[in-house]
């Protein structure tokens, strides 16, 4: 049953992509896509429910557990909101003449293909196939980043595809080394299978595994946007169409972190925690530190959000590095919270830049006066992302910082808090400038589509709702996912 459901979850986006290309008529394409994404989201949630009910599921090349379940929730939810948001956003782009109407089917097909590649990464059992999936996510999303085919979009796409391809080749090198370690250990199990590697962990050559992990951390770290390999990220996230920016930032970075966690489990079972822990803490803190100056002096609203993504990936990496059950719970929760809140912010940035006709922070004034609903939601989403209680991002950040102090690393915890204060200052300074005050005359003419507002409202309801009341199933999922990482990594 679960196997069939997995095939359905993977087949739906592919079928929707093919149907979009065949349908041609804009109205039909939109209906097909929203239906397809809703079903995909449903299938992903059903898989998660199945895992919660029956425990981990392994059959043929499929492996699902609480960790993949958590990520399936992220990707499923974001695929739905991104498609919903696209409906009105892309219509507006067509109306403004930035996108030719004939290109819409291609846009939706690429979007669905992108969703498919991410779902594939989350459902396969094998580190080799996972690599194939991660590489495919880059390729599917490159054409989305380049979608406008104007000069900045081409520049962003070229940097994105080159940097991520080189990074991912390093990950392949690490994966080959892991396979070599597995073969040298005389392990007859399936190549690069998670279960076989876990079973052989006592016999793997520690030196080879350590070498492999260095390349894997650099490789998938590039994909996840960890500093100093993050250089492609602000360009790609700011130049893509806004729904795609939301998916790139919320879903794709999370998928890269997921693959990193899977590899981490294999590596720490052989090496113990210390080595991997040092790497994760270092890259994590560095990512937050690198993002701060760029967020304090930023002129482009989408680049501001992109650097915020670098910061949040850093926070998750830091949480994984601390490695106590509380920190891992925080890291898992933070992946989910950041994904939903940040995608909502990118959607909002899309609405704002369409209505004001600019992405320049300095030219956006009086959001609340000009468009009260969007302005209020933007303020709420920014408050969420910087970690204001009672919104959910606060709780995951708090868990990670508290865990750092509880684990006897007060210096690192204090350093993170200090950096987060810098982020808070940068984000709030620009947000108050944009939200309050009088709107310039003639700004924000026109109307925002209902679908776009609905997508944002849905995300914000999730952000506020899970902050105020964490449903038992979600708490159970997070606890199980954290326990699983803890078991795999041996608590570092």
């Amino acid at each position, binding site marked *: 049953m679960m196997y069939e459901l997995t095939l359905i979850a993977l087949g739906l986006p592919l079928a929707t992509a093919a149907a979009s290309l065949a349908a041609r008529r804009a109205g039909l394409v939109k209906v097909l896509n929203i239906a397809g994404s809703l079903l995909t989201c449903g299938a992903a949630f059903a898989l998660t429910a199945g895992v919660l009910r029956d425990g981990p599921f392994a059959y043929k090349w499929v492996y699902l557990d609480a960790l993949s379940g958590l990520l399936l929730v992220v990707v499923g939810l974001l695929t739905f909101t991104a498609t919903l948001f696209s409906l009105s956003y892309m219509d507006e782009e067509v109306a403004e003449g930035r996108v030719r109407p004939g290109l819409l089917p291609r846009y939706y097909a690429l979007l669905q293909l992108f969703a498919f590649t991410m779902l594939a990464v989350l459902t396969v059992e094998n580190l080799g196939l996972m690599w194939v999936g991660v590489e495919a996510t880059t390729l599917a999303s490159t*054409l989305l980043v380049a979608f406008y085919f104007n000069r900045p979009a081409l520049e962003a796409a*070229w940097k994105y595809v080159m940097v991520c391809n080189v990074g991912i*080749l390093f990950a392949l090198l690490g994966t080959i080394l892991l396979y070599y370690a597995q073969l040298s250990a005389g392990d007859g199990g399936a190549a690069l299978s998670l279960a076989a590697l876990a079973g052989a962990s006592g016999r793997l050559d520690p030196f080879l595994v350590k070498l492999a992990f260095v390349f894997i951390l650099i490789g998938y770290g590039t994909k996840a946007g960890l500093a100093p390999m993050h250089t492609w990220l602000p360009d790609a996230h700011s130049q893509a169409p806004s729904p795609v920016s939301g998916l790139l930032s919320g879903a794709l970075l999370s998928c890269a972190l997921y693959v990193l966690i899977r590899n981490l489990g294999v590596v720490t079972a052989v090496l113990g925690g210390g080595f991997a822990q040092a790497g994760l803490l270092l890259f994590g803190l560095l990512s937050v530190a690198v993002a701060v100056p760029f967020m304090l002096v930023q002129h482009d609203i989408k680049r501001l959000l992109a650097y915020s993504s670098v910061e949040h990936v850093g926070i998750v990496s830091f949480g994984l590095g601390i490695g106590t059950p509380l920190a891992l719970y925080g890291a898992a929760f933070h992946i989910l919270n950041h994904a939903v809140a940040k995608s909502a912010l990118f959607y909002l940035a899309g609405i704002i830049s369409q209505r004001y006709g600019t992405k320049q922070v300095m030219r956006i004034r009086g959001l609340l006066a000009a468009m009260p609903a969007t302005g209020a939601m933007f303020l709420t989403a920014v408050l969420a992302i910087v970690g204001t209680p009672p919104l959910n991002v606060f709780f995951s950040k708090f868990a990670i910082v508290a865990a750092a102090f509880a684990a006897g690393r007060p210096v690192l915890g204090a350093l993170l808090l200090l950096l987060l204060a810098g982020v808070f200052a940068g984000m709030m300074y620009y947000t108050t400038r944009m939200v309050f005050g009088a709107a310039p005359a003639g700004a924000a003419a026109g109307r925002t589509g209902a679908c776009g507002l609905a997508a944002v409202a849905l995300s914000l309801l999730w952000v506020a709702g899970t902050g105020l009341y964490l449903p038992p199933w979600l708490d159970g999922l997070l606890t199980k996912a954290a326990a699983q990482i803890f078991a795999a990594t041996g608590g570092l």
Partner: protein
Amino acid sequence: METLAILLLATAFLLTRTSRLATAVHILLAQSAVVAAACAVAGWQAGETHMFVAALLTVVVKAGLIPYALLRLVRLLRREREVNPVIGANMTSLAAVGAMVLAYGLIEHALPAVISRDAVATAVALVLIGLLLIITRRQAIMQIVGLITMENGLYLLGLSTTRGLPLIIELGIFFDVLVAVTVMVILAFRLKRSFQTTDTSILKRLKG
């Protein structure tokens, strides 16, 4: 096997010398053909049929479709050549020699037990030289050639340490490489149309 390794190093070395795009693609074609031959030889020695399939795929994808696509693109770029690399051809060649020495040194230290030492060292050298090309060359085509060189190196590494990854993963990798080159050729084509050049050093508007 040793002969093939020397041939591969020679192609990588030649890549550091050329500034003509079409020549670079032809050298890449030869390099991929040698990798395919190495794969077939290794398969014959090990008596494994799946390696012949991989060799055939290498010929079709990396010595066939990819050079074909690149050459079609190059024909549109008649006046493009690598005019002003970050470091010149002589320095790059020197660095490539350094990469070969480094590769042998790394193998001595990191993988003393490995059987086919020359093949592994060649593989690592190819990866390093490919990376070198990507970093120091400004032409989009040259960067793509560097990327495929890196990929060829990794492929050879897999071949010489583990007799290649399982076929299903290998198939996925081939597919990814093919799509990657298609995507990059599309982008390079658009670069030519929007910027009238495929020299990527003009791509520096986005920062901060």
